[in-house]
């Protein structure tokens, strides 16, 4: 059970780029992905900015080499998962025992919500092919089948921490010798269902979001997918891994179905648990990729938990959701890739639109892109509905 698990590569598609390289360039150029809604059809089109992946389904289907009519959630997943695999240098996938563990929250809801008006009008109405991949697990299987993965296929849905929990489960599968490699992360497409849901909670900002800023008023939804390739010690020895997944923990806030506790109990327990597992002291963390949604409630709870755990030595930190928007089930995967790359290249990502210090906190996020730092350990936070809180730690060795 002592075997180490390494990150051999990663892939991302998001509102700031169709691949990881393009996403990085957007950080360097300080170009966040929020804009007026272009691809999703919604009554709220003019009201809420969103960070859509800048491509229609036909373009994504071409990139994914999948049929155009399948769920956007699967198209995004396929593109990022394939990029992740290719970046690992592992070659022919059939040579390994491979798992695919993907988080998502919407499944094929983008198609289901198109199907529903006709179905409501007539129980025999609507075309069934639109709901055949409604289930979250079905999205994962579409991609696993394309990639030729059969050894272990699983889907996790813990709201905004789904992608992070996929890395934990994937890591355990390797440590228990069930597989040698796991592509782990998450995917979610923007849907009217989630947009309207978050709107009823009154936590959507009508302006570009301002995570960890005192004037923040909510989040912007985004979409995308992000996967890392987890490999065992023995495989890592044949590769040049980016870094190691040295610690992780998942805790439940057990406070409210959607709100975080004022003192960030779950957040604190997740971060503390991850540090304990990696055997690190708080001051050894060089950068935190914050959950940082930009809602009043999240940022103050997360900030207070960080203050409690890290004071007085605060690492650099930022919320990349200020660029990608909140990609829900994908966010843990996307931010895991950003965090793993941060260790590899010493990157501190910028937190866009930060201007006003939060009065509850003694620290502020980084506001500009920089690379070449000596980052030994990076933490990534993902906290979500249902009280689900997860933290991951990536380490150089």
């Amino acid at each position, binding site marked *: 059970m002592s075997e180490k698990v390494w990150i051999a590569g990663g892939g991302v598609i998001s509102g700031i780029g169709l691949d990881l390289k393009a996403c990085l360039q957007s950080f360097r150029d300080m170009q966040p992905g929020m804009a007026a809604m272009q691809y999703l059809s919604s009554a709220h089109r003019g009201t809420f900015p969103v960070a859509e992946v800048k491509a229609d389904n036909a373009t994504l289907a071409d990139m994914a080499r999948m049929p155009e009519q399948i769920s956007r959630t699967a198209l995004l997943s396929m593109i990022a998962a394939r990029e992740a695999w290719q970046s690992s240098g592992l070659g022919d996938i059939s040579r390994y025992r491979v798992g695919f563990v993907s988080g998502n929250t919407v499944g094929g809801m983008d198609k289901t919500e198109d199907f529903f*008006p006709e*179905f409501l009008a007539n129980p025999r109405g609507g075309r069934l092919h639109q709901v055949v991949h409604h289930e979250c697990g079905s999205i994962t299987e579409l991609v696993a089948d394309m990639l030729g993965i059969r050894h272990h296929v699983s889907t996790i849905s*813990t709201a905004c921490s789904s992608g992070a929990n996929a890395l934990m*489960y994937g890591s355990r599968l390797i440590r228990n010798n069930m597989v040698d490699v796991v592509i782990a992360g998450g995917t979610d497409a923007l849907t009217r*269902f989630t947009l309207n849901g978050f709107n009823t*909670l009154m936590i959507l900002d009508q302006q570009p979001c301002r995570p960890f800023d005192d004037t923040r008023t909510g989040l912007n939804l985004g979409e995308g997918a992000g996967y890392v390739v987890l490999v065992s010690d023995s495989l890592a020895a044949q590769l040049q891994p980016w870094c190691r997944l040295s610690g992780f923990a998942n*805790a439940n806030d*057990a406070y409210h179905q959607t709100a975080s506790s004022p003192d960030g109990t779950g957040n604190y327990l997740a971060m503390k648990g991850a540090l304990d597992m990696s055997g690190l002291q708080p001051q050894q963390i060089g950068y935190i990729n914050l959950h940082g949604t930009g809602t009043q409630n999240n940022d103050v709870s997360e900030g207070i938990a960080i203050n409690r755990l890290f004071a007085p030595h605060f690492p650099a930190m930022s919320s990349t959701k200020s660029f990608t928007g909140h990609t829900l089930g994908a966010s843990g995967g996307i931010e895991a890739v950003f965090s793993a790359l941060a260790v590899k290249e010493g990157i501190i990502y910028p937190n866009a639109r930060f201007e006003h210090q939060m009065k509850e906190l003694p620290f502020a996020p980084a506001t500009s892109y920089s690379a070449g730092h000596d980052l030994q350990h990076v933490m990534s936070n993902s906290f979500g509905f*249902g009280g689900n809180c997860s933290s991951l730690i990536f380490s150089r060795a």
Partner: protein
Amino acid sequence: MNIYINGTGCISPQETAQGGPLLATPREYEQVRLSTVDPDYKQWIDVKQIRRMSRVVKMGVGAANLSLEAAGVTTPDAIITGTAYGCLDDTGVFLTKMVNQQEEMLTPTAFIQSTHNTVAGQIALLLSCNGYNNTFVHRGFSFENALQDAIMILKEGSAKHILAGGVDEITNYSHALLSRFGLYKKAPVKTMEVLNSPSTGTIAGEGAAFFTLGITKDPGTVAELTGVSTLYKPLWEGEVIGHIMKFLEEHYCTPADIDLIVTGRNGDIDQDEIYEEVAAALFPDHAEACFKHLCGEYPTAAGFGVWMANGIIAEQAVPEAAEFYGKAPKKINKVLVYNHHQGTHHSLVLLTAC
């Protein structure tokens, strides 16, 4: 390290929530859609909250509590659920309002309760449990993945008691849609005739089965959770047979060591064929028990099967309603639950008396 089943809880279309001899007086239906027999949820949930909770949440919370009570555990170290469909009722409510009201004047309750992790989150909230909390939503593997995650975490040594289970509900929308896919029988069949009905299609079911797993054996513990394995989209029957052989070897046994097989036959002549093949190849003289005629078919139905297998070990007898083939030996030591969902998701769960 041994993993023990220290408590179980099951809410199903049978009277499984009230204790007593295992499936002694089965409810007999003649319909293609079975619904749970609900216990009095007030014993676990505040009346005001019950009104707002959907059925899937109530049955999940109920079965979770039954299993914790049986194990004498108040707060587990982790809560892991499996649900293929998630909270369909609240999803349907929000979707319908969104369509009918053209995305205007919507309220948050149904959306909040529509997320797949609602059941695990609600259990954590009601138990004030800050521990590890996860939800698997992978079709016919959702329940099995929850067990696998629990086993791996227990083996790491950081947790003593883990609550793990599977839950799925049927709603009017989901039943209408799944019926259009042709999954169910065209005409109602009597419960005790489902498994031998000469037609395609099965009967729809729902329910929740939870297990309190631990690394130490309690006085009331009857079985060890010896192993869990999944097989995704086998290419042919031989691969299933080979997978079962390998699984048994990994747990240091052979087909001869198995005293009873519990299979997921659902009365669909096409889908049941593989059970015949497996029995003929590996277990030709073994006693076989079945459960889906009692609980219906749903992606996490294997949870009912494992719950029943644990009950069979406790009573050292197969209830008449579950007998399918042969007679189990006097001493029932090892029970293998073999299930598949729609031919694509095959799973094995091995229990050993302790």
